């Protein structure tokens, strides 16, 4: 009797564990809640998103692409303001790098450049205009590196901003 009540008591949690395990397994293989689930779909999607149950886990799976970057030129002699640069902690640089990666799949690159220019003006009130370049790092192959080639940039968009005041 005692054993039975223990099993009954434990059953809901065991069921939850099994369902959670199923979600983990299916999610890893790209299953996502579909329309067949009806009104459960949104609830499952919300739960899985918040608990990160559904994956994916394919970080750095091919193709490994170079990261995006933003380069800022102020007026006067062009200078490289390290918006991702050395005065930043690595964790902040990774997070800002993630912004750029996010924007690669968005069409909001000009918006990002606008924010970058605003930030630049705040840091450098002496400048009136700023040019920003959005692009990619081009990483040389190992043999090219041995021949002296180094990581460089490939432009994809250039914009110029002027301070309004």
């Amino acid at each position, binding site marked *: 009797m005692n054993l039975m009540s223990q099993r009954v008591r434990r059953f809901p949690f*065991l069921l939850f564990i099994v369902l959670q395990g199923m979600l983990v397994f299916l999610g890893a293989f790209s299953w996502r809640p579909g329309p067949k689930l009806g009104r459960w779909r949104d609830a499952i999607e919300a739960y899985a998103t*918040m*608990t*990160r149950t559904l994956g994916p886990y394919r970080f*750095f799976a091919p193709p490994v692409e170079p990261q995006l970057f933003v380069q800022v030129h102020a007026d006067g002699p062009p200078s490289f303001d390290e918006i991702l640069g050395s005065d930043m902690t690595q964790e902040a640089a990774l*997070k800002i790098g993630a912004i750029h990666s996010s924007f690669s799949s968005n069409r909001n690159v000009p918006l990002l450049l606008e924010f970058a220019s605003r930030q630049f003006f705040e840091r450098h009130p002496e400048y009136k205009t700023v040019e920003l370049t959005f692009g990619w790092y081009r990483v040389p192959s190992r043999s090219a590196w041995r021949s002296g080639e180094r990581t460089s940039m490939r432009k994809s968009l250039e914009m110029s901003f002027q301070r309004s005041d």
Partner: protein
Amino acid sequence: MMFVGNHSNTWSPATEASDAVVPAAHLWVRLLRLGMGSALLFQALGVWPDLKYIATWNALVPTSVTEMLNSRWFPRVGWFTHLLPQVGLDGQKAFVFFFALYTMLLIALIVNFYPKITSLLVFVLHLMIAGSINFTLYGVDRFASIGLFYCVLAPGRIALPERSDALWRSRAVRRLLQFHLLVLYWNAGIAKSFGPQWWHGDAVWMAVTQPIFRGAIDVASLAALPGVAVVAGISTLVIEIGYPFFMLPKTTRPVWLAAVVSMHLGIGLFMDMWTFAFVMIALNVGGFGSEYVAELLSWRPQMAQWRLGRRTQMERAVDK
């Protein structure tokens, strides 16, 4: 306060009433919370100096823009910006307030202060912060959410006797975490193996050469010895695909755990992604390594330590 002078692995009556004792099978949760708390505290302290670039009105992507793009149900700091002025706090600084609270709670998680409620609060705050700086998230934040979710699922402190429902739940959650890790690594390894980049070392080379990954090791040496990148790439595939097959059997588990930990330390060294490395090590040690950590530190039942004014005994962590 209770000191348990138990020199064997058997339970004495004196241990039964103490909720300060960590039973052997529950040590993994303590390690997971300690590891996740430490890794995320390391991340939070790294972000603090540059928080204004990441999560203010003047950030590269202001939180208001990020929050607009999220699903309406996703928790976010913006929900509270109108409430904070009513308690005398500046609504504009809501993110800073929540981030400070999150940082303090991480310390509470590390010292195991009300572990269940602290885990829940950290998990929710981590979600809220993620919801407000969505564009800045990378792999580590996803794995941090996973780790914190297991911290929430697992019981807090467990009062003896060992055959309690709480201990059963602890074991069940650990099995789930183990299953999650098996699926996660195997899936990641298989996905990598489909392309040639990991087989001939290009993936490793491209990862460590990018300027954003400012590793402690000069990549020029990797260019001079091309075989190293090939070996690193193939080793990664072997470790990840072999994870379920070599981590489950107890005979091969220590070797594979050491290999996985080494792989993540390598990511930290070469790519300066220390938070990611620490989070993954915490997940692995929590899931599969608590027995070895206990052995390594030579914890014995008679060892006791002060923790928040009460004597806590770390039980010998052999999960029977």
